[in-house]
């Protein structure tokens, strides 16, 4: 039996627009997706913001009722057997919310341990070891309101492990963490996987998925556009090279001209502080650079590098440059 089994899952949000003449509007957040997680697997769900990752996780954690399809967690239906699922899963959603700020870290964990029916003696031992695991042993008695974002995130990890769940849903757990905190958290995730926990991890950090996940599903506009191992996904772009150019203030029409070049496969533009990073996937490799620089003539162009594609490039290609 699969630990997580998702079949044709769909979620539509209904909302209204207008004040006097209200019109119903439907937004398809998750559109007929199917996948499964084997017991003990660390599975990545990748996608840009608004792709449907969090909606999927909320349906799998029984917090949101699907509009269509089915999802089974440890063989139980998320809609009709939600109560049986809740004691056996753990989940965290990225961010600072979801903790009682006026209580200490330890008191937060004690409270959630009671809600999860962990016996007090067991809870005491587990809280101590979990605080150790997430590096909060010396700050556990302090009120959460004084914690940094990273500390809160680590406390969330401890909270979700209190009842020793079989399946974990980690929704962008490293978002907003400093690099050191994120690296430590990734190590915690690796350790959990070594303990044979089944983990569904959503992220939009490709290197994170590459480093941690055994299989990855790429979700875009509510649909799964690829599902494979990170290596297999990378092989999809093995014939491409990536030209990465440091640019400043690229107008939309110039971006469209780059996109329309016949040798260009995918283009993405990312703002990095005051500058932008233009990434062009092309089969022509370094030979494409003079033509690209030509299209950008008149604009300030900084460093240009040509490199091998990564999983992130495979992902960018799959989501059409929207990453």
């Amino acid at each position, binding site marked *: 039996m699969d630990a997580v089994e998702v079949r044709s899952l769909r979620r539509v*949000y209904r909302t209204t627009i207008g004040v006097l003449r209200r019109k119903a509007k439907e937004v398809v957040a998750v559109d007929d997706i199917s996948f499964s997680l084997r017991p003990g697997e660390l599975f990545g769900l990748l996608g840009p913001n608004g792709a449907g990752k969090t909606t999927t996780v*909320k349906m799998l*954690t*029984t*917090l*949101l*009722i699907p509009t269509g399809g089915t999802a089974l967690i440890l063989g139980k239906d998320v809609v009709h057997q939600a*109560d049986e699922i*809740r*004691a056996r899963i753990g*989940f965290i*959603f990225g*961010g600072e*919310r*979801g*903790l*009682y*700020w*006026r*209580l200490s870290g330890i*008191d937060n964990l*004690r*409270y*959630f341990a*009671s*809600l*999860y*029916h962990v016996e*007090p003696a067991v809870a005491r031992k587990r809280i101590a070891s979990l605080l150790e695991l997430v590096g909060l042993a010396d700050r556990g008695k302090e009120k959460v309101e004084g914690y940094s974002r990273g500390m809160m995130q680590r406390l969330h990890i401890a*909270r979700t492990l209190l009842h020793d769940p079989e399946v974990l849903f980690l929704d962008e757990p490293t978002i907003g963490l400093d690099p050191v905190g994120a690296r430590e958290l990734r190590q915690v995730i690796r350790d959990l996987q070594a303990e044979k926990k089944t983990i569904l991890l959503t992220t939009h950090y490709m290197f994170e998925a590459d480093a941690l996940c055994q299989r990855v599903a790429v979700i875009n506009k509510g649909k799964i556009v690829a599902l494979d191992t990170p290596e297999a996904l990378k092989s999809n772009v093995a014939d491409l090279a990536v030209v990465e150019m440091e640019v400043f203030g690229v107008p939309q029409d110039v971006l469209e001209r780059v996109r329309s070049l016949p040798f260009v496969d995918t283009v993405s533009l990312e703002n990095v502080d005051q500058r932008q990073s233009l990434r062009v996937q092309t089969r022509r490799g370094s030979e494409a650079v003079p033509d690209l620089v030509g299209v950008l003539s008149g604009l300030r162009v900084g460093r240009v590098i040509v490199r091998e594609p990564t999983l992130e490039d495979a992902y960018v290609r799959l989501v059409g440059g929207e990453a």
Partner: protein
Amino acid sequence: MKPGLWRQHLRAGLAAFEVTLRINAPDSFVLFTIVVQPLIIAIMAMWMLVERGAANALYVVVGSGMTGLWSTLLFLGGNSINWERWTGTLELMVGQPTPVAVIVFGKNAAVVFQSLLSMVASYTVAAILFRQPLSVEQPLLFAVSLLLTMVAFVSFGLVIAPLFLLSPAVQHFQNAIEFPIYMLGGFLFPIALLPGWTTPFSYLLAPFWAARALHGASTGGASLEELAFDWGMMLLLGAIYLLISGRLIERMLRKARSEATLRLE
């Protein structure tokens, strides 16, 4: 339900009780609702009713204490589920194995327990500021009445809390509900002073029977039979409120899970 599960739910409810007490303790709004507002009401009522000989001081102490009880329940107990939503913990509350009703019960019990301070504050003002003789005529019966009052108020709060989340429109009238219950409950003056058509509404409110029992036991104006009737009504209405709240919480959760409103984005 398995016997072990009862114990686990009880422990979870007590944990919710303790956590709510600790979270509310340093809150200035809580302090205002529990202590300051009932004190203002007590002082005004002492001037208006006691000094003019319209009521005895103990009646006013109990009555103004009950206004604190009700206001606290309305604003804190009523918003106990919404508060979790505002702080982003409602999803966690729903996504764990303890029923939400158990947690809300624990939270409301804490709020009602805290609001007993209202009565202490009113008592202190009457005794010190107005130098009124304050001795409860039937202390044991008063204690039983107070215990049942707490049960009745907690169960009443369990109806209000999911209602506020089910219908934000109802919550908008939160302030408007506060004073009518003071009057319909007969907290500060007998409902006989109100128009006759309001009496059935009072009878449907457990706070009315609570006020009757507390006033009766404190002033010695009620027989044991009358008090037993008040207690019975509190228990009956409390049981009805619990049944209604169970349904409401179920509906609220279904609606919130369908409409994705467990979390404020």
